[in-house]
């Protein structure tokens, strides 16, 4: 019996694992471009004819590196990332990997190519990267000539190799013309360039079209001018193009099966990209959001099976929260935020469970306060400056020392470095002469909501959150009730000074004492935790001619709990002016 049960249990475990793998594969498939996942892919966004610039064919030809290894290349473009196969062990990897990418006039145009040395067991290491503007590339190199780009070391910007790339763009009209021919050729089983009625009928079924048989016949006969029972693909393509305009007959994608409810242009874009994905013409693997994800070794993938839910945009709440993906506004590319896995684990344990928060109530608040004060003292010692190089190494491609006002040896403590100033002009202020335009108050990860309701629906999950709670009892909050909310979250590597988002006069400062919970989204997204209304904070009321009163709330967090203002009540501030900074301390 015992053995039997054990065998059954093993079988059950195996079957569960198989099911997980199956789920992984099917979800992975669904997250590919054109498959209609929520990963911000082509099929989800409606592209207007005015915005459509064409479909670019990008080819990663190869690279020249300075040492031998097995190499892997990733392309990040907009919200998608693709990876090549792994090369042989060589200094000159050749991939010849192709990918078709949708170009929109106001969409992303900057592609980032990263080259990784591969590890069998560990995470692959990025060795170099380059960025190229695809729109510029195709204008400058219309013949899809191979062009080389310097690969830069993310830490030092030294050149570590060369990348060879080609790119061409299909004219939108050409894409449309080719499209109908292409879909018809799928069912041209005998490849004679002609379609029989049965072949045409099969295609209609694949498109999910439930039109009556007589409608199919009617269409077919219209194209079959000489009545010989077959029509050329060119003839039928022309007819289909017209017909699709009047009464869409393509209802679902024959590759991924997704219902196509968008207009003709979007259906065409979806299928043009999806067909390549499905027919194996493309040699790059998709389904990743960031190049970090695409570079993970197979050991990571094992854990990915059990944490698949984490691979979506933004932060997933609940027990699955472990990665944060943010979108870079400049490049329109997704970026994965670096958080130490141990910190993630502890934050989940503390902030996403009732037990964790209960423990927090029973003395842990004081521990956080003491920890922050202790850390503040430590970071003000001369010895703490030794931590600066390792900090820079950890965030190597995210801190640009070239824009910092002083050189590294200027900073005598870590805290001095942490509150580093930037060179004048490093952060241009948008519409400087127009006070009716508000600007970002910090280098940060930003969330913006037109109403408080939206903010609680999409982001702030603490049950006790309210504007009154945020601003405290000493601020007249009636004017702000149901106002608009912008949340600027600073990550450790960010420039830690905050600036005025508007021009006006500082009316008053109100200090509210409180806890020093983390302000990481893991806590903000927890229904058990109310970081914004319970943390230590300073509220500044700025009176403006354009926006009325604006409440500016600086909220301290674990370890970084010291809030310093460099302005005073009555000061007139221009938007973009520095207001103060956060530093290590309690």
């Amino acid at each position, binding site marked *: 019996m015992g053995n039997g049960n054990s065998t059954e249990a093993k079988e059950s475990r195996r079957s569960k694992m198989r099911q997980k793998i199956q789920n992984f594969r099917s979800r992975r498939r669904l997250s590919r471009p054109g498959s209609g996942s929520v990963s911000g892919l082509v099929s989800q966004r409606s592209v207007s004819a005015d915005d459509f610039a064409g479909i670019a064919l990008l080819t990663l030809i190869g690279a020249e590196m300075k040492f031998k290894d097995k190499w892997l290349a990733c392309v990040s473009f907009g919200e998608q990332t693709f990876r090549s196969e792994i090369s042989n062990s060589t200094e000159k990897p050749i991939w010849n990997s192709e990918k078709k990418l949708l170009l929109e006039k106001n969409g992303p145009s900057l592609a980032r190519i990263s080259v990784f040395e591969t590890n069998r067991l560990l995470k692959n290491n990025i060795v170099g990267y380059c960025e190229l503007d695809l729109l510029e590339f195709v204008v400058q190199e219309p013949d899809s000539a191979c062009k080389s780009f310097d690969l830069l070391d993310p830490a030092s910007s030294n050149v570590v190799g060369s990348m060879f790339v080609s790119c061409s763009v299909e004219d939108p009209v050409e894409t449309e013309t080719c499209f109908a021919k292409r879909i018809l050729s799928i069912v041209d089983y005998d490849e004679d360039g002609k379609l029989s009625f049965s072949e045409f009928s099969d295609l209609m079924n694949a498109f999910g079209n439930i039109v009556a048989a007589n409608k199919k016949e009617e269409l077919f006969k219209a194209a079959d001018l000489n009545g010989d029972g077959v029509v050329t693909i060119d003839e039928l393509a022309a007819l289909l193009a017209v017909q699709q305009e009047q009464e869409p007959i393509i209802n679902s994608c024959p590759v991924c099966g997704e219902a196509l409810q968008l207009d003709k242009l979007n259906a065409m874009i979806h299928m043009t990209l999806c067909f390549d994905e499905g027919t194996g013409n493309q040699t790059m693997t998709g389904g990743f959001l960031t190049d970090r994800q695409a570079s993970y070794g197979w050991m990571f993938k094992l854990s990915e099976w059990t944490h698949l839910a984490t691979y979506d*945009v*933004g*932060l997933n709440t609940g027990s699955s929260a472990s990665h944060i993906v*943010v*979108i*870079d*506004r400049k490049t329109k590319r997704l*970026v994965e935020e670096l958080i130490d896995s141990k910190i993630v684990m502890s934050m989940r344990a503390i902030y996403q469970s009732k037990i964790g928060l209960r423990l927090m109530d029973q003395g842990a608040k004081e521990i956080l306060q003491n920890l922050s004060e202790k850390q503040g003292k430590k970071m003000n010692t001369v010895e703490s400056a030794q931590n600066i190089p390792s900090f820079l190494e950890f965030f190597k491609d995210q801190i640009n020392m070239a824009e910092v006002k002083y050189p590294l040896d200027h900073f005598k403590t870590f805290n001095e470095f942490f509150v580093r100033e930037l060179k004048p002009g490093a*952060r*241009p*202020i*948008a519409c400087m002469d127009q006070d*009716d*335009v*508000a*600007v*970002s*108050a*910090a*280098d*940060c*990860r*930003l*969330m*913006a*909501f037109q*109403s408080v309701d*939206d903010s609680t629906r*999409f*982001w702030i999950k603490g049950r006790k959150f309210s504007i009154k709670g945020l*601003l405290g009892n000493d601020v007249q909050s009636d*004017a*702000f009730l*149901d*106002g*608009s*909310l*912008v949340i*600027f*979250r*600073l990550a450790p590597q960010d*420039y830690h000074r*905050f600036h005025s*988002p508007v021009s006006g006069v500082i009316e008053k400062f109100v200090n509210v004492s409180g806890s020093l919970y983390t*302000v990481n*989204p893991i806590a903000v997204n927890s229904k058990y935790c109310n970081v*914004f209304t319970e943390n230590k904070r300073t509220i500044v009321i700025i009176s403006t*001619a354009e*926006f*009325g009163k*604006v*409440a*500016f*709330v*600086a*909220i301290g*967090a674990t370890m970084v709990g010291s*809030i310093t203002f460099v302005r005073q009540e009555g000061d007139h501030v221009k938007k*973009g002016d520095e207001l103060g900074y*956060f530093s290590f301390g309690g």
Partner: protein
Amino acid sequence: STVISVFEKDSIKIDEDLLANSARSLETLVTVGMQLAQMVWTKAKMRL
């Protein structure tokens, strides 16, 4: 650390891309000085 700006109801029109990302629970990486929102004229007129 975090900064939150609260604006009076109907006083600003936040940029569409920021709202769209936020509605997907997706934070947007921005730098100091990037455009955030514009004044809403009707409310401002009443005030002025």
